[in-house]
C-alpha cells in the first residue's frame, strides 16, 4: 500500500512523507522523508529512512525507533522533531 502525507509541524517546517507499508503486518516497507526542514548532518536522513523499514505503524513504536535512530546518528533536526516525524508517518495511514 502506498500513501502520502503533508504535515505542517507546529512552530516548524512542512514535512512530506511518502510511505509504502504492508497492510497485513502493519509495518513500513519503504519511506521517503522530504520537506523544507533542516537536519545535521544532512546525509543521516538516508540512515533514518533505511532504519525505519519494518517498523510497526503504531505511535509508540515509531516514536521510540525514531528517537533511537536520532540518538545513534547524532542527528540534529531543526523545524521538525521525532514527534513531528511520527505524526507525519501516522497521517499516511487511513
Amino acid at each position, binding site marked *: 500500500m502506498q500513501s502520502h502525507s503533508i504535515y505542517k509541524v507546529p512552530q516548524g517546517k512542512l514535512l*512530506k512523507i511518502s510511505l509504502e507499508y504492508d497492510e497485513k503486518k502493519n509495518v513500513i516497507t519503504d519511506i*521517503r522523508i*522530504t520537506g*523544507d526542514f*533542516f*537536519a545535521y548532518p*544532512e546525509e543521516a536522513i538516508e540512515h533514518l529512512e533505511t532504519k525505519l523499514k519494518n517498523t510497526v505503524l503504531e505511535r509508540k513504536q515509531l516514536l521510540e525507533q525514531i528517537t533511537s535512530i536520532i540518538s545513534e546518528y547524532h542527528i*540534529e533536526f*531543526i523545524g521538525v522533531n521525532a514527534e513531528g516525524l511520527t505524526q507525519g508517518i501516522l497521517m499516511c495511514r487511513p
Partner: protein
Amino acid sequence: MTEQWRLLRTGFMNAFSNMAIDKAILVVNSQGMVPPTVRFYGWTPPAISIGYFQSLAEEVDIKACDRFGVDYVRRITGGGAVFHEKELTYSIVVPEIHPAIPKNIIKSYGRICGAVMNGLQQLGIESEYAPINDILTGGRKISGNAQTRKLGTVLQHGTVLMDVDVDTMFSLLKVPNEKIKDKLIADVKQRVTSIHHSLGKEVSFKEVAGAMKTGFEEEFHVELIEGKLNDEELSLAKQFEKETFLTKEWNHRR
C-alpha cells in the same frame, strides 16, 4: 589589529557553478588553506534551488523551467525552494570553532542573519530576524537563509531580495493543491517583499553588495579584503559542478 577575512565577488553565474563554488570554498577552508570567506553572487540564467531534503519532482515544474530557460539545482543545505532572479546571494564560510560562530546552530543563524540585517540597515531598511532562517521587514520576508556544517566548517548562504515576481515563481514551482493556488499566490504576495518594494526605488546589485560588505564587517568586527578563488577552489568547483550539481543523480535523488 582587525581580523581580515576574504571577500569574493564572483558575479553572475549559473546555478551549478554557484553551488559548486560554495562547496569548494567550504572544503578548502576546512583544510585551513583560505581565510573565513564572504562571497556575493547572482544567478544567470535565473534558477530554482531546492533544499537538500526536498523532492525535485514534487517541488519544481521541470517542464515550465525548461520552457522559460530556468535552471534547477539541489543545494547541499536544507530549507525550501527558492526562485533566484533579482537578488543578491551571499555565502559565508567559517570554521565551526571560530569564536564569531555560536556552537548552537539556531544561534549561529541569528548571528549571520545579523550581518544581513546590518547590511539592509545601510540601505535604510529596518528588519528583524524571524527564526529559524528568515529576515523580515514590515512583517514581510526579504531574506531567506540556509546553513550546513561539514568538515568542521560552517557554510551559510542566503538571498537578499532586490525585486520579486511571485507570479513567475509560482509558474515554476508546484503547489500541493492546485485548487488553492490563487489564494496561495495572493498569500505569498502579502508575505514577501524586496528592497525595491520596501524603498520604493531600485537599488543596483553593486550598491546592495557594498551595503552587505559593511554589514558583515560591522557584525563580525572584521575587515573584508577583496580576493579571488584560489587554484584549488577553482579546480574543486569544476569537479563538484560536473560530478554533483549537474547530475541527474544529485538533482533527482529525492
